[in-house]
């Protein structure tokens, strides 16, 4: 599969770079399903661009920024160290968020859209009233988000409470609270839906629930609250 050679290639490059300084280099995680497997909810074209171009670009730029940071640290070049932070936050955040996102989605035939059961299902009913209410509120948050960002179903692992959060640009969920764990995120950057849904973000939000991977979300939940 074409995928494997891409990741193997970048893995090799990563290792080659990494070994020089012992610096961890990041690479594109494989998509757990075919590019067309989420159709008709998310088109193959979008999945290919999103994974192979957008996510890969975040990783490439993240690695570059980290390399530059490494050099700046070695030279104790504080202005550079500080100046690099925004590129690291943006590109590193993009890598973190998209790595989670691919796992948050799954084809219908593999359980995409199947409502959560067990402890997560129960927590949702208790804290939101019903799954429908949760969906409505996530969609409302997603629709209201101005510009680029993400909507999350978050678990506060200390308070053991669910909440809906939004982050701007590529800020990871943890920037909203260090105890927050993402059960799933929905990318509401325009690149996530534009080719298919154009300006109608609401339709994208309405449809994405058909491929949300509640099984994975439950696993994450049960890991924090066994």
């Amino acid at each position, binding site marked *: 599969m074409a995928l494997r050679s891409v990741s193997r290639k970048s893995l090799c490059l990563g290792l080659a770079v990494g070994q020089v300084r012992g610096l961890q280099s990041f690479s594109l995680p494989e998509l757990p399903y075919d590019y067309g497997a989420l159709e008709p909810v998310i088109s193959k074209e979008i999945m290919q*661009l999103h994974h192979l*171009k*957008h996510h890969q*670009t975040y990783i490439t730029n993240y690695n570059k920024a980290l390399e530059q940071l490494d050099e700046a640290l070695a030279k104790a070049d504080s202005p550079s160290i500080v100046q690099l932070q*925004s590129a690291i936050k*943006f590109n590193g955040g993009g890598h973190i968020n998209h790595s989670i996102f691919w796992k948050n989605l799954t084809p219908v035939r593999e359980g995409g859209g199947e409502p959560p059961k067990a402890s997560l299902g129960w927590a949702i009913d208790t804290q939101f009233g019903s799954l429908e209410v949760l969906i409505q509120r996530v969609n409302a948050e997603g629709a209201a988000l*101005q*510009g*680029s*960002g993400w909507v999350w179903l978050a678990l506060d692992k200390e308070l053991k409470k669910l909440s809906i959060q939004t982050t*701007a*640009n*590529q800020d990871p969920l943890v920037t909203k609270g260090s105890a927050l764990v993402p059960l799933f995120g929905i990318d509401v*950057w*325009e*690149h996530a839906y*534009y*080719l298919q849904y*154009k*300006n109608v973000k609401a339709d994208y939000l309405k449809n994405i629930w058909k491929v949300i991977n509640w099984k994975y979300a439950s696993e994450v939940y049960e890991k924090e609250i066994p």
Partner: protein
Amino acid sequence: MVVAVAAAAASSTRLTCALLPRQGLHGIQEPTPGLQWTNKKRCCTRKAGPTITAKLELKPPPYPLNALEPHMSQETLEYHWGKHHRGYVDNLNKQIIGTELDEMPLEDIIIATYNKGDILPPFNNAAQIWNHDFFWESMKPGGGGKPFGELLQLIERDFGSFEKFVEEFRSAASTQFGSGWAWLAYKANRLDVGNAENPRPSDEDKKLVVVKSPNAVNPLLWDYSPLLTIDVWEHAYYLDFQIRRPDYISTFMEKLVSWEAVSSRLEIAKAQATEREEEEKRKKEEKEVGISDNEAVEMYVDSKSDDSEAE
């Protein structure tokens, strides 16, 4: 965008109800109380009879939707102008109808709802309407090339060369993370510290700058005069360029920019800056005349200390 009611006429009906500060775009900024904007329709008792509200209208680009092909597709214009821009207009109208923001000029709505950073809901729609009007007018069929005349002179003065300006503009547009805009703006004779007066103002303080802004923010909020903008929200280029924002920026610079529009905006900006300077000079002179009167009074009051020193 067409606003039917003149601001001057509206002000007299608002004295009784709005706590809205009367900030003109280039007026002296007085300390403003919090903007009392709510969703409820104001209880202002206007004259009896139907209230005439100014409904903002979607202004079309100064060229047909296919005129920028092949550099910016008709499809892009149909969605970008026909859906996104139209949506901002429709949504703002819904938000402001019956409130004190209704009937205000768009630029005043933008500044009022920006609320010094504590953004109110209509801000995004209002600012995006303005930004998109400005964006369409920044382009023209057969655009690109180089600026000319005074604009080119100032660009060369403030950036070193036209090429260096282009580099800086492209960099701003590429590194605006997330949604936003890149701008060429005219910054007139202001220190960056509020309330400070530039003790030795000179023509050199007025300069061209490249800035970038997130989401709906624009340089009006920083009291700059925008001259040129490029929309770097993904919806502006995704249908034609997908992830390739740098290619979009190049195409914009090489094939779409209307330097005529930028030049005429510069003329207006300079005239406004001069006008404002003259008004400030006038105000300062009025203040100084006031002070010297006070000093005269104090001399008489303070005569006691003169006697003690003489001893």
